[in-house]
């Protein structure tokens, strides 16, 4: 069982890293009508659900910094991404026992809810003063959450997230 999990991790993490590299290098090309998924967020979910809380929270902060370094335009608010990701992973880790005990549907709704809240928090701060908050929700938050959740589901189909 442990050997199997290790094998799975050996495939999963390089795969996610590759996905992440593709995501940051070809960020402009994977967007649909200006909506881009956050592949690092998917990565973080996998880590939070499979690894220890210490690794997950450090990864959240580091990934946030990495995202702001490598993605163009993210420097408008330097520190916003690590802040949002740290808070998201903290919330996820705190609610994880409850989420894992719940039914499958509730589990996925909870994941989507967390992604949505993350984007809501991030986008409301990022676009504050530029775009009306309602527009931020329907133009960015909802589609970006859906896109990222879709990728998370694709990863889940290959490597089930409820193994922890």
């Amino acid at each position: 069982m442990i050997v199997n999990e290790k094998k799975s991790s050996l495939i999963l993490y390089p795969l996610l890293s590759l996905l992440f590299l593709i995501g940051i290098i070809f960020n402009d090309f994977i967007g649909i009508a200006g909506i881009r998924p956050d592949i690092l967020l998917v990565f973080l979910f996998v880590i939070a659900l499979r690894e220890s809380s210490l690794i997950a929270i450090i990864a959240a902060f580091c990934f946030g910094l990495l995202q702001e370094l490598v993605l163009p335009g993210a420097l408008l608010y330097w520190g916003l991404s690590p802040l949002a990701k740290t808070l998201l992973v903290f919330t996820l880790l705190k609610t994880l026992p409850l989420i894992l005990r719940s039914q499958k549907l509730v589990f996925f709704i909870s994941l989507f809810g967390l992604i949505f809240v993350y984007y809501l928090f991030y986008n409301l701060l990022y676009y504050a003063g530029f775009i009306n908050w309602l527009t931020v929700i329907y133009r960015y938050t909802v589609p970006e959450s859906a896109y990222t959740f879709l990728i998370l589901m694709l990863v889940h189909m290959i490597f089930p997230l409820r193994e922890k």
Partner: protein
Amino acid sequence: MLSKLYDFIIRKHLEILTVIFVGVSLLLLSRTENHVVLVLQTRWQDFTSVIKKPLIEQEHKRRVMEENRQLRKDVFLLKRELAQAQSLMMENQRLRDMLGFRDTSKYELLPALIVYKGFKDGTNIITLNRGKRDNVKENSVIVNKEGLVGRVIAVGNRSSLAGMIAEPEARLSICINPVRVYGILKWHHGNIFVIDDIPTSVDVREGWTVMTSGLSEIYPENIPVGRITKVTSSENGFTYLIEGEYFVPFKNLREVFIFIHDR
């Protein structure tokens, strides 16, 4: 004391790390546009741009092609609009000229539009959008601002059929101005008419105008018909062979006037 602190850190490591990370993030937020970060980001962009170059070029090409397609579409639409505008301008000019002619004419003129040009029983006919309702009668005379066009040959309630003077069977009693010589005009070909049987004893020259004589029961006198373009003597030497050109461009005729009655 130290062991208690250690236990607390171990127990609450998640909360402590979160507070630290949140604090650092907030600190970074307050120092937006950090120079080192900007340099790092620029270098990263330089590095990735090499990998992205083919895709960027492809994307650029696609955009240029799309823009080109859109521009060609716009050019087509603009050309069409220009053609429409020119057509409307010409129509406007024609109608203005007709309006001026109507106001100076001594007859009561009813403007009519040619809705159909055709051929019936060996005769060129035109269909006008005026009929009995508009007081149009059989043999009502049709003119345009240049001169005589023809006459109404059949009248319906809302439309009427008319025959033109430029056709094989048409004959017209005319008078050559300024000498006031009378003769019969016949269509020859295209926009050309001929007048024969004018005696060589009278002086007839090229450029003189041909008007209706008023001897006909249908056409009133002095309606312009055409201009003489060629004068030659016939074989017997007693009469002229006169050729002329109608004033009315029958091929391009679109709007006409129908004589209702004298003013």
